């Protein structure tokens, strides 16, 4: 729904030689292709789980394009680059046609990863395409995980969340037990639903985390690597915290309170996870500075 509007910017910024005009047909083409795609993504995937993650990724992408607007003006095309670009666009178009018609969302959405760099190769050349790598590679976060893969990831993730929550509360002295992914807290029976696995928040946080590391552009590779490695554990801990809160709310406040809190707590989870990530980044910076001054 938003792909096109973003690329308008370079046009506006490069008016002198009229090269901006070439973006208009491209924007029209991208809108024809992906407007329906994003509408379907919204109804099939994003709407199912609070909708937040997908929108976040699209918003970030728009910002990335805006941030890279200067690079969209440099044109240095090469014959080989153009040839590869056209091949990428044609291949992407074929994958799109197959994916869209047969509802293979991964092909349909994934075709962006061929078509977008293909377009920059053809219109701007290899140098700009390389410079813009993060902008088009970031689109990988819009590709939804296939249902079967989600199911096989969800099983261990839900099991882990249920076990962690039960252990924590059991040691805190609550009368709690579990059968697989069903938690019994006092008189209540709580299901760890798919959404409680935290998988969607995990994808959104991975996108934000990767972006953060890219933008912060730390000199030390170790720093970036540690931050990236922390994404999954941080997101998982935040999720365990969320489910624990919900179980406690239900146990002490009753079923109605637990349900009421359900949606709010998932926003708090993103905040907690991102906050911890931020704190970790600063701790790492402080540690590196400390080590440097000690040396």
């Amino acid at each position: 729904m938003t792909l096109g509007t973003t690329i308008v910017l370079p046009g506006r910024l490069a008016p002198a030689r009229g090269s901006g005009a070439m973006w208009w047909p491209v924007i029209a083409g991208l809108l024809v292709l992906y407007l329906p795609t994003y509408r379907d993504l919204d109804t099939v995937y994003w709407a199912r789980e609070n909708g937040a993650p997908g929108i976040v990724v699209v918003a970030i992408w728009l910002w990335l394009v805006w941030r890279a607007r200067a690079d969209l003006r440099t044109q240095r095309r090469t014959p080989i680059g153009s040839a590869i670009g056209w091949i990428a666009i044609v291949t992407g178009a074929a994958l799109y046609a197959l994916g869209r018609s047969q509802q293979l969302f991964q092909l349909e959405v994934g075709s962006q990863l061929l078509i977008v760099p293909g377009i920059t190769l053809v219109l701007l050349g290899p140098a700009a395409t390389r410079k813009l790598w993060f902008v088009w590679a970031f689109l990988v976060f819009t590709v939804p995980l296939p249902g079967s893969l989600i199911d096989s990831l969800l099983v261990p993730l839900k099991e882990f969340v249920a076990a962690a929550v039960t252990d924590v509360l059991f040691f805190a002295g609550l009368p709690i037990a579990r059968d697989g992914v069903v938690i019994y807290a006092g008189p209540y029976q709580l299901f760890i639903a798919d959404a409680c696995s935290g998988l969607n928040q995990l994808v959104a946080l991975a996108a934000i985390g990767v972006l953060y590391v890219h933008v912060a552009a730390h000199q030390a590779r170790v720093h970036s690597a540690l931050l990236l490695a922390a994404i999954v554990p941080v997101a998982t801990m935040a999720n365990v915290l969320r489910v624990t809160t919900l179980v406690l709310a239900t146990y002490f406040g009753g079923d109605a309170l637990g349900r009421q809190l359900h949606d709010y707590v998932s926003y708090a989870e993103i905040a907690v996870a991102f906050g911890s990530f931020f704190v970790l980044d600063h701790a790492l910076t402080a540690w590196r500075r400390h080590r440097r001054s000690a040396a």
Partner: protein
Amino acid sequence: MTAGFVRGLAVLALLAAAAYSAALLTPRQEPGRDTPRLVALIPERFGSWAAEPAEVLPVLLVPDVLADAEASQSASYDDVLMRTYRRADGARVMVALAYGRRQTQEIKIHRPELCYYAQGFVVSGLGSRPVQLDSARSVESRALLTENRARTEVVTYWIRVGERVANDAWDIRWTIFRDGLDGQVPDGLLVRASSLSENSAGAERELVLQHEFLADLYGALPSATQRFLAGREVTL
């Protein structure tokens, strides 16, 4: 017109061609559109079996159980039927059917493994078992042993997609894809029979009982309904 603009137009032409081919390739036939209600298709009495009120709550047909069980099921399927049958000799079998008019890659029948798991059961697979429905027809089924702290339940199921029985996730996807290229959106039906067992050692006996139940049911149905349950034998 600058060369850049011409290139932009060429990109537009390719992208428009992609959108047009996608529209051409989109399957439009939906054979499942005029299916009658399951309640009308499956008799309450046949042979020595008769439906009776459920003795235990059946495991729901969806993995994600929301606050309202009925609502979670009707959000996923076009029609659902759950019944408990009792045979003259006292043996009981629970049957659960879930029907979806349109099966697509992302919206399709939930496999019982996940539904039982999500509802607190430990699920172990007992392999693929052919069910002899009559002298001419046998279908490949999956057998499961499911246990939680309150009960042990043995399950036989198969999933029909279009004209085929496909129990494996990739097989289901492949069937939907092939039908799609033929211009069809297949319908889908889960046939699940289950019974309670004292312990896991009794599993084989329950499977025999379930196969007898399914064969008795199949034999009592008109051929159109037989095909609705088990599809046609088609080789790929």
